C-alpha cells in the first residue's frame, strides 16, 4: 500500500509540474479532492483539534456547571492527582488494558488458528465467536452482571449442585472486580480480533505452510517463528483497534458495576463523565480528559506518524 502511495504521488507530480504555468494557484490543484475532503477536514480540524484545544483550555479554569474562562492555573491537575478515585481509575485502566491486550490477542489468535485447521462447521463456529460483537456494551454488561451475580448466577447454580463453599463473585469483590469486568469485555471483543487474525492467516501464502512441512517444522513452531512474524500488519491493526477500545471503556463498567463495589472498578472515562456532569465540575472533568488525551497522544501519534506520515 505504501509503495503504491509513493508511486501514485510520483505519477501525479510531473503532470502537475508541467501544467504549473496554467495553474498558478496551488490551492486549486486537486480541487475536487479538496472539496470532497471538506467533511473530513472539518471533522479533524473543528471537532477533534478544536474540541481538544477547547477542552485543554478550560482545564485550566474553575468552570463548574458551565464553562467559564476563570483561570486557576494547574489547580485542577493538582487535585486530580491526589484524588484516590482517579488513581484507582488509572490503575484499573492499566490492569484492564494489559488483560484486554494480552488475552484478546492470544485468544483471538488461538481461535483463528483453530478455525484455520480446515475444520468442519467453520462457519458455525465463527458465527458463534463473532456474535457477541454485535451486542452493545450495555447489553453485554447486563448479561454478565446477571451471570456473575452470586445470588442468581454461576455461584448460585454451582452451590445448588452441592458445592456449598464454591465462591465466584468477581463483580462483588473489590480486589478482583476489574478482572470480572474483563471477562465480559473479552467475551464481547475477541470475536472481531479472531476475524482479523483469520483474515490475516488466510492471506498467508499456502506455499509457506508447505515449505515448513517439507522442512519438518512442527506446527507450533511454524506459527510462532514464521506465521506470526508475517502477520505483523494484522497485529498492528488489531492492536490499534483493541487499544482504542481500552481507553474508551465506560459503558461496560457502568452496566456491570457502576464503578463498584465502592470505587473499585472505576475507570478514567467514567471519572471524566461523572465529574463533568454529576459533580458539575467541568474544570476537573476537562483536566481528567486532558490527561487521557495526553496519554493517547503519547501512545498513538508516534505510531500514526510512522504508519501514515513518513511515506509521503
Amino acid at each position, binding site marked *: 500500500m505504501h509503495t503504491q502511495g509513493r508511486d501514485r504521488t510520483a505519477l501525479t507530480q510531473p503532470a502537475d509540474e508541467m501544467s504549473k504555468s496554467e495553474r498558478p494557484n496551488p490551492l486549486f490543484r486537486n480541487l475536487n479532492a479538496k472539496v470532497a475532503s471538506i467533511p473530513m477536514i472539518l471533522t479533524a480540524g473543528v471537532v477533534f483539534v478544536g474540541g481538544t484545544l477547547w477542552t485543554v483550555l478550560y482545564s485550566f479554569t474553575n468552570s463548574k456547571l458551565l464553562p467559564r474562562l476563570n483561570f486557576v492555573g494547574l489547580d485542577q491537575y493538582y487535585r486530580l492527582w491526589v484524588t484516590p478515585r482517579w488513581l484507582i481509575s488509572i490503575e484499573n485502566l492499566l490492569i484492564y488494558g494489559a488483560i484486554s491486550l494480552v488475552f484478546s490477542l492470544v485468544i483471538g489468535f488461538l481461535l483463528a488458528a483453530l478455525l484455520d485447521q480446515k475444520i468442519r462447521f467453520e462457519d458455525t463456529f465463527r458465527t458463534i465467536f463473532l456474535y457477541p460483537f454485535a451486542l452493545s456494551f450495555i447489553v453485554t454488561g447486563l448479561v454478565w452482571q446477571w451471570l456473575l451475580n452470586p445470588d442468581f448466577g454461576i455461584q448460585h447454580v454451582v452451590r445448588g449442585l452441592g458445592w456449598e463453599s464454591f465462591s465466584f463473585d468477581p463483580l462483588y469483590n473489590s480486589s478482583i472486580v476489574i478482572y470480572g469486568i474483563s471477562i465480559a469485555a473479552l467475551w464481547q471483543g475477541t470475536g472481531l480480533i479472531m476475524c482479523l487474525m483469520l483474515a490475516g492467516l488466510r492471506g498467508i501464502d499456502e506455499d*509457506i505452510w508447505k515449505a515448513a512441512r517439507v522442512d519438518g517444522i512442527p506446527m507450533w513452531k511454524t506459527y510462532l517463528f514464521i506465521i506470526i512474524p508475517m502477520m505483523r500488519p494484522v497485529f498492528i491493526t488489531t492492536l490499534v483497534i483493541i487499544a482504542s477500545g481500552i481507553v474508551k471503556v465506560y459503558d461496560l463498567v457502568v452496566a456491570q458495576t457502576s464503578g463498584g463495589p465502592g470505587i473499585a472498578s472505576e475507570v478514567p472515562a467514567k471519572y471524566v463523565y461523572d465529574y463533568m456532569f454529576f459533580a458539575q465540575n467541568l474544570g476537573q472533568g476537562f483536566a481528567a480528559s486532558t490527561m487521557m488525551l495526553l496519554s493517547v497522544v503519547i501512545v498513538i501519534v508516534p505510531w500514526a506518524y510512522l504508519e501514515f506520515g513518513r511515506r509521503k
Partner: protein
Amino acid sequence: MTAANGTSVSIQNLSLNFGAVTVLETLNLDVANGEFIVLLGPSGCGKSTLLNCIAGLLDVSQGRIFIKGKNVTWEEPKDRGIGMVFQSYALYPQMTVEKNLSFGLRVAGTPKDEIAKRIARAAEILQIEPLLQRKPAALSGGQRQRVAIGRALVRDVDVFLFDEPLSNLDAKLRAELRVEIKLLHRKLQNTMIYVTHDQIEAMTLADRIAVMKGGVIQQLDAPQTIYNRPVNRFVAGFLGSPAMNFIDGQVAAGTAFKTGNVSIPLDRYAFDAAGNSGGPCVFGIRPEHVAFGEAANTMPFATDAAVEIVEPMGSDTLVWTKLGGHNFSFRVEAEKTLRNGEPIRIGFDPARASLFDSQSGNRM
C-alpha cells in the same frame, strides 16, 4: 515390489479424489535415479497435485509411493528425503537468507558445524554467499528463487521437487535460471521432478516428459519422442510453438488422407500397431516440418498455395496459408520476404506427420 536399483521414485496406482471429484486417476510413474522428469500440462491437469502427493503434502486416496525403495505413502514430508521449491519461493520473510536455509536443519537438531558446512556448500553452488545476511524482501526474484533452491539443497536429499519455480519470473530471468537448473542437475546428479506448464522448460530440461491432462499421464517419453510422435492430439497440440497444424479429413484405407480437394499419400506414414481402419481423422504436421519453394518439390507431398498472412518472429517467419480450405502455417527463414497473396509452393514428408483418430484423438 522392490524398487529396481535404478528407481528413485515409484508411484503405483495413485488416485486422488476430493469428494466426487477425481483429481488423479490410477497413476503409475517410475523415475530413475538421477533422472530429470518434467510434469507438463495445462493448469488443472493435476501435475502440481501429483507433485504434492509425492512430497506428502496431500494424502492420497489410493495407491503407493516409493522413494528410494522405501514405501513413504504414510510418511511425513520431512521423512521422505525430498526437498521442494515453490513457485512463490515461500521464503520465510522475517528471516535472513542464512536463517531460511538453516531453520529446518536446526529444528531437526542437526549439529551446528554440519549446518554451517551445508549452507556454505549450497551458497557456493548457487552463488548466493553475498546474500546470506539479507532478508528476502531485499532480494530480486531470481535471487529469491536461488535461495529457495538452496533451502532444498541444504536438506541433502535425493529427490528435488520443483513446483513451477520459474513462473513468477520475467522471460529473461526465466531463461537464465533454466540454464542454471540444468547445470545444477548435471552437477548434483539428483533425481528431479519438475512441474511446469511451459513447454520450452519441459523440452530443455527434461530427460523425460510426462504430459498430463485430466489427472492422467497422457504420454511419458523423452522430449524428442513426445515432440515427434505425440500419442494423441492433445499432446501434439500442447507441445510445439508455433502449434502443430491440424487438418480434419478422411483417411482412405491406408493409402491417403483426404480433405477438400487435397489428397496426401500416407504410404510413408508409420501407422501404430492398431493399424489403420480408415474413417474420419485429423492430420497433424508441425510448421517447421513444412518445406517451401524449391525444397517443397523434393518432398513426397507438395502443393500450391497462396500467402495469406506473414508473421515475422525475428529468428524466422511464420507464414499462414490455406491447405484444403484449412488454415495452415509453416516456417521460413527470416531472410525470405513474402508478400500477401503471393503464390507459393509448399510440401512435406508425411512420415513426419501425425494422424489422430477423430473420435478418440489417439494416434493412428
